[in-house]
């Protein structure tokens, strides 16, 4: 194992972090919007949100990424490797986080709405001052769980050629022939990224309220 190979894998680890972080942030906006669609009283919007969520959850990420990278160009939409990976991971995050957001909000007891409404608060005030602070706390553990699986799922992007941690590992193996050691190193790298994030969950929960 050369110093160069190790550096190569570590640098690719930064790509794993970059694509995951961007997908999470963009996906969170998409998820908030989707959660809103799924909770309005307008049936058509509920249906649109439902179909999108089920499509994302019911098909493999690998297929979604292949579709975006290999099939969309046939329809004239050509995205770079990085953009394809980012779009697929963002779309996934949008669907999964939308369900976490919706479930967290709907888990707040109706009595909280009643109390706030009977005190004269507007719907917006109720959501911002009463419901969200409680819902965010509930959403933290599943969100942290989702972030760690997002980081690991970003390895699927190696199949369309994105040089992130997993692909860098495979390239290093081809160069050095040291399969076991290299895979071990890549595994450790994922762990080092994910473990602190898992540990964060508890301390964030305590800080929220």
């Amino acid at each position, binding site marked *: 194992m050369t110093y160069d190979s190790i550096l190569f894998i570590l640098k690719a680890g930064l790509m794993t972090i970059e694509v995951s972080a961007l997908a999470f942030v963009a996906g969170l906006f998409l998820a908030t919007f989707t959660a809103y669609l799924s909770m309005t009283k307008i049936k058509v919007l509920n249906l649109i949100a439902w179909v999108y969520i089920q499509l994302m959850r019911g098909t493999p990420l690998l297929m979604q990424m292949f579709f975006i990278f290999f099939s969309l160009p046939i329809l004239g939409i050509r995205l770079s490797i990085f953009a394809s990976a980012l779009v697929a991971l963002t779309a996934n995050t949008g669907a999964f986080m939308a369900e976490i957001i919706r479930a967290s909000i709907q888990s707040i007891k109706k009595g909280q709405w009643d109390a706030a409404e009977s*005190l*004269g608060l507007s719907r917006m*005030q109720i959501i911002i001052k009463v419901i969200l602070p409680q819902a965010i706390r509930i959403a933290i553990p599943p969100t942290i769980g989702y972030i760690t699986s997002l980081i690991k799922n970003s390895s699927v992007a190696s199949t369309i050629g994105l040089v992130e941690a997993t692909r860098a590992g495979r390239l290093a193996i081809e160069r050095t022939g040291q399969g076991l050691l290299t895979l071990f190193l890549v595994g450790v790298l994922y762990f080092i990224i994910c473990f602190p994030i898992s540990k964060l969950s508890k301390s964030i929960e305590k800080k929220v309220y």
Partner: protein
Amino acid sequence: MLEVKNVDKYYNTFHALKDISFNVPKGSVTVIIGPSGAGKSTILRCINRLEVFNSGFIKIGNKKIIPGKMRYNDLKEIRTRVGYVAQSYNLFPHLIVIENIILAPKLVLHQKVKAARDNAMQFLEKVGLADKADSKPENLSGGEQQRVAIARTLAMNPEIVLFDEVTSALDPELISEVLNVMTSLAQEGMTMIVVTHEMGFARSVATDVIFMEQGSIVEKGSVADVLVNPKEARTIQFLSKVL
């Protein structure tokens, strides 16, 4: 002060309130009794429009609640005048006691934080919980939480307060601390509508009693009329079971 006129309410095909009419004069304490499913809570929830009804109207002073959609500004005005305390207290668990109380005065009445706090402390004192101002709701007993909920409602300076079975979820020895607060409120002249199974409270504090069953008012009148000399057979039967 409050007029309920010909109110009907349906849940799909279920006729929950049937032609309900009654008046609540200023300073009176109206107790609503009846078996479960009678529509007691439903009519209370209609009075501050947590529930929408299908026909009739409810008038609070010069403000009118009508079936169907209403503007938020009208709702806000109604809910500011009408306080509501529920069986399950519903304190906001992410806020400490004092913040629970000043939230609505700040957001809805636009009170300054300092004024809202001073006001809130007065009400906490009134319900005997001034020392709990900085506690989390989760660290209070059920009776204490319910008293905070009453203080939270009073901090909005309502003209009338609705109590919806506020002692039903409490341990027997905690019930009296809540009833005492309600009794002293009544003595100060607060207009109240109380749904309760506490007949002792009804006898000693109520000025008017309404007996409801299956969505209808069976009998209404003074305490002497309804609790002591009921005329309807169904009222007599019900009272014989609960007294």
